[in-house]
């Protein structure tokens, strides 16, 4: 008997004209940004699927980013978990994570729209580094907003951005993490909506960003789907990805939405546990509301105040989630669960030791979820989105895993 989740393949025509994925999404921004978003939308309609843009985008992905990224069989994890395990290696992409796909695409778009400068926000620093690199490559000045807490815990990435020529602004207001960085980037954009292009790094924010980011990141799932057919001769039983804002997850999932036989599993940051403020799992524990331009699920109190989150992973440490994920959870097409800090660090250690791959702590959440799936589904073919590499996490790992190792 097939479960309802397997039976329900999704139409892939969303969002609608108002940027809605079912009830979720939309465009909740100050009036100053409405014309800028209209121009962005018109620019997307003109350029994004135009053969000239696609040719340039794919050329950059191939010759500069290093795509297609590998699909690796993971024999040791397979043996340990009693399943077939395949890794989509976004950690091998230039600058170390999937973020570069989106950054290159949006920077190319910004040039076509005549923007004078790029601004970006960053949590773990991966989108910041990717934006700085893409802007350098295409000859545009770049300013990156980063929460002061993240500046500290992801220090290697701050220095990388500086070497790549970007100006890094540490945001000391608000929660001093990704959410505050987005607020500050929006304030910058409101001040110069005509000359500045805001390169938003995740599938969040006002329409058309969730759509744009999904389209640019779907290269992950398209490649992985073809690679699975080639390497395994079949599609996976499940594709697993970590979810913060949800850009790598939507990029991996979207090309599989119509494959009714492929389950999709998103893994959020479970942090220390279920309490408000102890995790960053907006789909698991959140309630509907409007945050940073979008109606989605958010971690908030009874008065609609958005709450601080906790995750060992800076890239997942966000109080909201992309509206398409909220929709896919409600439709039942994608399942979402969470993995705690310690489960994720264990999964990271296991992958590093037995597969010779050090995933980012963000990506390690997907490994933790995949391992749980394997326990319940022996022999399953599992595709894991290894969204980034863990080099940037050394300061955190020195204070966690390595401390335990040295004890």
């Amino acid at each position, binding site marked *: 008997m097939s479960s309802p989740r397997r039976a329900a393949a999704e139409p892939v025509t969303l969002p609608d004209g*108002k940027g809605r994925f079912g009830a979720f999404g*939309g*465009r*909740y*921004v*100050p*009036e*100053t940004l*409405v*014309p*800028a978003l209209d121009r962005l939308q018109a620019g997307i309609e003109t350029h994004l699927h135009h053969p000239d843009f696609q040719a340039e985008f794919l050329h950059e992905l191939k010759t500069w980013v290093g795509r297609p990224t590998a699909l690796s069989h993971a024999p040791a994890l397979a043996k340990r978990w009693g399943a077939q395990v395949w890794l989509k290696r976004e950690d091998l992409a230039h600058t170390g994570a999937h973020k570069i796909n989106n950054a290159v695409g949006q920077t190319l778009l910004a040039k076509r729209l005549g923007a004078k400068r790029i601004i970006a926000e960053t949590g773990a620093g991966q989108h910041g580094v990717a934006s700085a690199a893409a802007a350098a490559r295409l000859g545009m000045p770049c300013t990156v907003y980063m929460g002061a807490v993240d500046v500290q815990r992801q220090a290697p990435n701050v220095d990388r951005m500086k070497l790549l020529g970007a100006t890094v602004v540490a945001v000391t*207001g*608000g929660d001093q993490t990704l*959410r505050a960085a987005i*607020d500050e980037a*929006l*304030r910058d954009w*409101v*001040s*110069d*909506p*005509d000359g500045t292009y805001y390169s938003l790094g995740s599938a969040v924010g006002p329409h058309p960003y969730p759509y744009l980011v999904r389209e640019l990141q779907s290269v992950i799932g398209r490649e992985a789907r073809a690679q699975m057919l080639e390497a395994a001769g079949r599609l996976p039983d499940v594709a697993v990805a970590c979810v913060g804002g949800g850009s790598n997850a939507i990029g991996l999932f979207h090309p599989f939405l119509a494959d009714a036989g492929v389950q999709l599993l998103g893994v959020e940051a479970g942090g220390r546990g279920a309490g408000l403020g102890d995790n960053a799992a907006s789909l698991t524990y959140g309630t*509907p*509301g*409007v*945050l*940073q*331009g979008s109606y989605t699920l*958010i971690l*908030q109190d*009874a*008065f*609609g*105040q*958005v*709450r601080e989150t906790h995750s060992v992973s800076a890239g997942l440490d966000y109080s909201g989630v992309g509206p398409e994920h909220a929709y896919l959870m409600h439709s039942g097409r994608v399942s979402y669960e969470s993995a705690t800090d310690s489960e994720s660090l264990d999964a990271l250690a296991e992958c590093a030791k037995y597969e010779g791959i050090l995933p980012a702590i963000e990506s390690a959440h997907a490994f933790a979820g995949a391992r749980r799936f394997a326990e319940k589904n022996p022999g399953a073919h599992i595709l894991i989105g290894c969204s980034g590499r863990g080099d940037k996490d050394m300061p955190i790992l020195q204070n966690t895993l390595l401390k335990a190792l040295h004890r």
Partner: protein
Amino acid sequence: MKQPRDSGPMTSPSERISAAIQAAVAKGRPALVGYLTAGFPTRRHFKDSLAAVAAVCDVVEIGVPFSDPMADGTTIQRASFAALADGVTLPWILDELKSIEPRHSAPVLLMSYLNPLLAFGIIELPRAARDAGVAGFIVPDLPFEESGDLHHALAGEGLALVQMVTPVTPPERLSMLCREAKGFVYAVTMTGTTGKSADGKFGDVPADVLEYMDRVKALSRVPVCAGFGIRSARQVARLAPHVDGVVVGSALVEALERGEDVGAFLKSLR
């Protein structure tokens, strides 16, 4: 249909806002709209601060603090975070307003980001707001296209949803927004967040801003108030021939923060 529950004149709260602004204009001066963040600097003195502002201003905007004030500059961010830390909530604000006897003659609007209103409940909000003497709302992250539900809910109690327009609003959109406006049109003086100076690089409100105010004025059936970055009597005087009123926000919040006599500060702007 609902019967008006106020025993006073048969004007809706929305019309009271327009009338208060027009009354100032009739006296030959621009209406003064004062903004204060609710419960800042302290919850305990909120009603006193409000009374001091309402005594001088023609219309009062009360800011509902929010965790993510993306349209606000540093002053109102600081005030919002302090008020939240002090436990200010929308129900508390409405309770405080409800307890004021007699009501201030200046109409009161709430300025709130959308999410605290959604958390309160769009269905419950209009009645609760009207009972607290609130005449309308300004919601800086709610563009016209998304505003239908709230607009209709508020209209059921005669409350205004004030529309913002900006210098970068394209002409057709400007006409549409002005046509639909209730209470007054909030004409933002510049691209940017609250609290910067509306002065251009030549140290005065730029001529193109005045021309834009003239365009808004020509399109609008309700009064037009200029806001964002208005801090001095000189700016007010320069804007006065082009608008029906001016909004003073960050500068007023800073005066409250310093513990100054806000009545005297507001009078100095006239």
